[in-house]
């Protein structure tokens, strides 16, 4: 496998600039997420070739093209299984998964739940704008009750999903919520999520300025309250985290809801990786092991 042959040098924001500029609508919340991820990687000084950014399909899933790391732009809803395969084949990589609420909580909901219970060591950032943007404005799994969209012109009658509560119940070992309008706070959460050894879920309010006229920056700003500002809040208390996750209305908590460090990540729990990443292993099986395989059949 790779060894860095160049002398280590400071990684700069410019190193993380993608080959093309983002094509998101002016004012899109996703710009803030991209900037925060780039800042976090620079702060943590993780070389860009050690990072693999993996997305599904949707506006926010164009993310890997806009950042200069190894990237995979996969299928709609399938980023997490692809990312799980990448991480298990080379657990030395820092794996970031990016996508939207439709990608992650709609078509990809099954994979989302299982990736969390497996505690795959990666950071999953959902740019949650509560709407389908790239398909020009349909109801998403997190659209509020009553919201009028092209697919539900008379108002949404389906209860929205609560990503934080879902993540807590599915066994995610790091659960947080950020707001694209709170850059510094978001960058901190991303750094913590990358450093956490296990599945880190980060739901980010990332307003869609084109199709969601309900959940705008102006709507979020007075409502978001940082959990970090509440000295009494204990993010190791799961029950407390579930209670806070249910708050929605005049006050909406953002920040780290929950973290536990006593559950090994999937790659750490599998002895076959004790010898190192699969990609660095021997292709040939030792003769005595081969002999035992054949002997069983004799």
């Amino acid at each position, binding site marked *: *496998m*790779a*060894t*860095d*042959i*160049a002398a280590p040098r400071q990684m700069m924001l410019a190193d993380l600039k993608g*080959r*093309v500029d983002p*094509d998101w609508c002016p004012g899109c919340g996703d710009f803030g997420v991209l900037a925060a991820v780039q800042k976090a990687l620079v702060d943590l000084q993780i*070389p*860009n*070739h*050690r990072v*693999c950014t*993996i997305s599904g*399909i949707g506006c926010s899933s*164009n993310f*890997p*093209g806009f950042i*200069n*790391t*190894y*990237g*995979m*732009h*996969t*299928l709609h809803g*399938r980023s997490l*299984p*692809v*990312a*799980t*395969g*990448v*991480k*298990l*084949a*080379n657990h030395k*990589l820092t794996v970031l998964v990016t996508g939207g609420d439709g990608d992650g909580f709609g078509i990809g909901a*099954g*994979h989302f739940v*299982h990736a969390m219970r497996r505690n795959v060591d990666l950071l999953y950032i959902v740019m949650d704008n509560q709407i389908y943007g790239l398909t020009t404005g349909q109801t998403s799994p997190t659209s509020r009750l009553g919201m009028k969209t092209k697919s539900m012109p008379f108002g949404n009658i389906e209860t929205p999903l609560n990503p934080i509560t879902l993540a807590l119940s599915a066994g995610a070992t790091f659960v947080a919520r950020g707001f694209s309008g709170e850059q510094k706070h978001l960058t901190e959460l991303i750094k913590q999520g990358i450093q956490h050894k296990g599945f880190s879920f980060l739901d980010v309010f990332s307003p869609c300025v084109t199709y969601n006229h309900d959940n705008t920056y102006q709507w979020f700003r007075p409502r978001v309250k940082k959990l970090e500002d509440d000295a009494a809040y204990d993010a190791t208390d799961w029950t407390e985290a579930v209670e806070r996750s249910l708050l929605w209305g005049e006050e909406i908590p953002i920040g780290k809801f929950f973290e536990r460090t006593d559950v090994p990540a999937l790659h750490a729990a599998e*002895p*076959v990786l004790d*010898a190192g990443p*699969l*990609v660095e*292993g*021997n*292709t*040939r*099986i030792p*003769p005595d*092991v*081969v002999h*035992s*395989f*054949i002997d069983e*059949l*004799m």
Partner: protein
Amino acid sequence: MSQTFAIGIGGAAGQGIATPGDIFAKIFSRRGLHLNAYNAYQSIIRGGHTFLTIRTSAEEVTSLGDGIDLLIPLNQDTMDRHLRLLTAGGACIFNSDTIHPGTPADGRQLCALPVSKMADISRNKVAQNTLAMGAALSMAGVGFESLESVLVEQFGRKGEAVVKENVDLARVGYEYAATNFQPFREPLPKTENRYAVPSGNIALAMGGAAAGVKFYCAYPMSPSTGVLHWMAAHGRAAGIMVRQVEDEIGVVNMAIGAAHAGVRAMCATSGGGFALMSEGLGLSAMAEIPIVVIDCQRAGPSTGVPTKTEQGDLWQVLGAAFGDYPRVIAAPLDILDCFTLIPEIFNVVDRFQCPGIVLCDLLLSEGRLTVDPKLLDFNPPIDRGELITSNSAGVHDDYMRYKITESGVSPRAIPGLPGYVHVVSSDEHDEDGVLISDEYTNTTKRRAMMEKRMRKVTGIEAAVVPPMLQGPHDAAVTLIGWGSTDGVIREARMRLAQQGITANQLQIRWLVPLHGEVILDILRGARHTIIVENNYSGQFARYLRSETGFVPHGHIRKYDGEPFMPHHIVEAVHEQLAGTTTLSVPTHEVMV
């Protein structure tokens, strides 16, 4: 094929058919005999009807044959259904306490075991099985010590008392048969050879291990689950990461992720699971990440007949994923080929950075066959193609993952290497991986990228061996098959030859690339062509016609869930040569 000897053991699921099956298989293979075994069963854990056929010979056993030389019915149902399959000189060993004998044809021996007088059946519920095994081996002229040593091995884990009880019971059966029953005319032969007896699923899994697969994932689905079971049990010893995933969509995408990170990745499923993997195959092709997917076909459509065999997935596999893309599809010819094919197909998909599909079926997956252990080569050639796994030359500012080349293959750098940072995409992209879909759509670039990928097809065709005609050149009939029908067609040809009808055979192993020109050259000289396949609509016949325009004289098809028996093909050839029909659909004579 010389003299063969077929044993049939039948009963309800849970009556312990597997154990005598394993014991007979071990005794035969350790006598240096070949065997071919197949279990006809139902999707039920207790009850129903299960019938295991084990056919053995000093020479290769290419099919399960037509008859049973020794029938061991463990219940009345089996006696009633299968007695008619007994061959002349054959015998039926049964528990006369619980089973009423049927009326066999002349020259068949009914061997009644008064089980309650021979064993304490209140203590041992499967006493009849052990007694019958003892009796069978006595009649077949096999020394008791062969059975004793296998019983010790089989029951050793359960403690000495259980071993002794079974050995004693077997001896009672053995001695009872020596006194009361006629031995078979020919005692079982013996050779100095020693064979391994893998199932097709074990062979597929071991083939993956030999190919250097480091990542295997699956969702359980009959009849492919045996691959997962072998991988799960042996993965840690072999250095293979094995994962059970939430569904087949997750499976194929997880395999793609692992493959992208640089290891060989494989997964297996059946038709229903394969349907869910379809979009993932497109990703593999578009992002140019090689994976191998095995489809162990079962009778469809939908949930279909989960425990029965069919070759009904060909068009699903041909049409899987939308759009045009390069890929390879191969069907193993027998259980040994399940092993051999996997390293071969991995070399092709690694070289051409595309998906590879193995079209197996229940007949091979769950059947068992003796294999010379020397042929289970765990050091086959491994060609990873143009894969960049180390950075030897510094920064590569000009590296383009999808560089347009003459061969269509672009050097593939794995993530983690400095100097090769790039993005791969399911969207259409430019040479550098940048999306050209959406607002960047550019017809010139789209066409260039499409042609780049599709140029691989030429290379793939050259990389794969074209099919060859087997048997005499100027034959009265040419039988065309694909995949698992190889052995039964071979046996049918031998029968036909004995009856004065020369037959040759074109057996297709690589379905894509098909080598249509080669096939046409071969068939141009054929006198009477018949396509044999295990499905309703003649899927291969329709495919061959679409690719080459070739139309055969006739078809032999079977879609009742059971595999062909040699006589099905022999009789169909007779009726077609006589001009009675051009489509024969043989009836399976026994309900299993």
